[in-house]
């Protein structure tokens, strides 16, 4: 990052600092985040894990966040339809919008907007402020995302610097808390809406998910744009899953066609807990997701399944790190990416097995499909192992549709355009079919079919 850019970040922050709520991030933490950004800057294409991301747009972006009163009005009809069974909480340009949210009772799980007093809770009786919890930094004074899992130095060196940018400017954040033993398989949807043009302001979504022992939670996190402006969205998500708990985290990136969408996710998974993340990325001109999942307790499991569809000039880049810290932990990373037109889908997956993580079982399967003559796929599975007695599989492919499959369909009389659509669909279905909630799977299939444009072939599948 150029010095000019970091100077501008500092200046824009200084102009806005007085309006940034300390309930979301304390002034001290904001200053510290800025200080790291000033000295080490944002990642650039020269950083190994960032060479495929499209970072150019940042040069023209404004980094300031919007004060609540200058937020653009969003009508309920601007939003995608809700998914049955999930209570919806809406954040517009990073700030909670109670008028668009529809709370519902959900098995003791609470949802709070940190900055606004109008925060809704699905279960007022179990208002959990001040209660003990499994994760760190939950008190409304300091929901800290980066600080809990990594020291400042690591964040500066590593790939989580965009999280620091969020920390410096965030105006609000959602905290979802599931108490011990709560069972809420279809639970809440957190919908982040971006409206502002990137030249005038950025959107900083923040989401914290704290799941206590033996609870079960299904969460949808969705990102959309309203209006035609090119937004800059830079989100942070932190997930803490206590022993024996189970989380299904569905993430949908459906930002506007001109948007720049970045995010940083960290998750810790304790003993015998399971974290399943399904990320479906179809929107934005430039999208980059950075995730780090740590399996810190024995028997912990994580699955990261990514579907990425890019067309035109879109760039979708991803970096997913899974760290096996404890023994007998299990992980699975899957990418199914299709690049059409002149688009690029890049995905860099890394599994690190620490010295105490004996009995680790990990799988990486990254597959990219080239659906355009000028499209690009970059997939890279990596492994770093510091112990023995582990099972680590990895595979990566990038290529065109299989000619034998195509001929097989043609020989049965299927028209060529339909056969091609079917095969693209089949390529993704491998991951999509794992979405256990039928309503949600159907919805995601419709989102994907919509992105694939010619849906005639798929109408019966939906």
């Amino acid at each position, binding site marked *: 990052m150029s010095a000019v850019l970091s100077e501008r970040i500092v200046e824009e922050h200084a102009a806005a600092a007085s309006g940034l709520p300390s309930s979301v991030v304390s002034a001290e933490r904001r200053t510290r985040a800025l200080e790291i950004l000033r000295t080490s800057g944002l990642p650039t294409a020269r950083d190994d894990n960032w060479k495929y991301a499209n970072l150019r747009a940042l040069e023209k972006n404004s980094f300031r966040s919007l004060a609540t009163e200058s937020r653009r009005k969003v009508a309920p009809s601007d939003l995608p339809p809700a998914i049955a069974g999930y209570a919806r909480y809406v954040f517009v340009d990073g700030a909670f919008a109670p008028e668009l949210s529809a709370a519902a009772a959900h098995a003791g799980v609470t949802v709070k907007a940190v900055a606004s007093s109008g925060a809704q809770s699905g279960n007022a009786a179990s208002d959990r402020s001040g209660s003990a919890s499994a994760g760190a930094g939950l008190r409304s004074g300091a929901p800290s995302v980066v600080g809990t899992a990594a020291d400042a130095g690591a964040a500066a060196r590593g790939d989580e610097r965009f999280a620091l940018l969020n920390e410096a400017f965030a105006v609000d954040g959602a905290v979802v808390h599931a108490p011990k033993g709560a069972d809420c398989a279809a639970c809440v949807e957190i919908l982040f809406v971006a409206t502002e043009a990137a030249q005038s302001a950025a959107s900083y979504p923040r989401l914290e998910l704290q799941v206590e022992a033996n609870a079960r939670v299904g969460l949808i996190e969705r990102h959309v744009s309203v209006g035609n402006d090119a937004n800059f969205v830079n989100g942070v998500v932190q997930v803490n899953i206590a022993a024996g708990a189970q989380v299904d985290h569905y993430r949908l990136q459906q930002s506007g066609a001109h948007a720049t969408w970045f995010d940083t996710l960290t998750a810790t998974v304790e003993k015998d807990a399971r974290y399943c993340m399904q990320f479906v990325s179809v929107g934005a001109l430039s999208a980059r997701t950075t995730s780090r999942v740590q399996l810190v307790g024995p028997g912990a499991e994580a699955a990261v399944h990514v579907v990425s569809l890019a067309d035109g000039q879109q760039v979708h880049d991803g970096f997913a790190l899974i760290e096996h810290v404890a023994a007998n932990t299990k992980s699975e990373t899957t990418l199914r990416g299709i690049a059409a037109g002149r688009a690029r889908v890049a995905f860099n997956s890394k599994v690190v097995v620490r010295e105490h993580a004996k009995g680790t079982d990990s799988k990486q399967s990254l597959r990219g499909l080239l659906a355009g003559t000028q499209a690009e796929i970059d997939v890279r599975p990596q492994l770093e192992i510091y112990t023995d007695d582990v099972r680590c599989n990895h595979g990566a492919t990038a290529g065109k549709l*299989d000619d034998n499959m195509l001929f097989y*369909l043609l*020989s*049965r*009389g*299927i028209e*060529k355009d339909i056969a091609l659509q*079917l*095969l693209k669909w089949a390529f993704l279905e*491998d991951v999509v079919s794992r979405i256990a909630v039928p309503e949600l799977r159907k919805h995601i299939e419709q989102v994907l079919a919509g992105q694939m444009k010619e849906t005639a072939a798929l109408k019966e599948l939906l």
Partner: protein
Amino acid sequence: MLKIENLYASVGDKKVLNGLSLEVKAGEVHAIMGPNGSGKSTLASVLAGRPGYTVDKGTVTYEGKDLLGLEPQDRAHEGIFLGFQYPVEIPGVNNVYLLKAAVNAARKHKGLPEVDAFDFLGLVREKMKLMKMDESFLSRGVNEGFSGGEKKRNEILQMLVLEPKLAILDETDSGLDIDALKIVAAGVNSLRSAERAVVLVTHYQRLLDYIVPDFVHVLARGKIVRSGDRTLALELEKRGYDWVLEDAA
């Protein structure tokens, strides 16, 4: 129905078919036999329009039309079915969906409305019974995780549902145990009629015990070197191919 005249075809630089001629009339079952590398599978692939095969010379006429000028999907619409030697697995495309899409594509070609989904499922179930296929097949991906025998049975099931005029079965018997062979043969026999024809490409006489052919042809070095009736296959089983090849040379 099908008339192949003086057909020369190559795969890449390799000339495989060298002046093959064959006529198949409606109602007939022809068996094409021959040693490895004689061009049997190439013939099946050329007839179905598989990419990568070049026709250098000769003509193929099907029901009065120039078959070689048709795309593979159009050949299917015209009633040609290829049973694959190695059926392709397509995870993510459901078996029943493929069958229905295939039937509807052919109907559309004939200007007919789409099949009724309920009736269609009934038809598929009935044919599945004939092929002794498990109900779970309905919800699985095309050939996904099927054993070799299941894949071949699935090919025949597709054929029964599509009811082609001309079925070309490329080594449908390879890799089948005797029970599966009988099931496959029963499937093929159930389709035999005065309006349809079958071309069986096979290595072994065994299949012909169950699907009795009207004609047997020996293919060697890219052309038919001997034709006869069923007894030719029996003789080949006893004596091998060498004597035919020597006779032809």
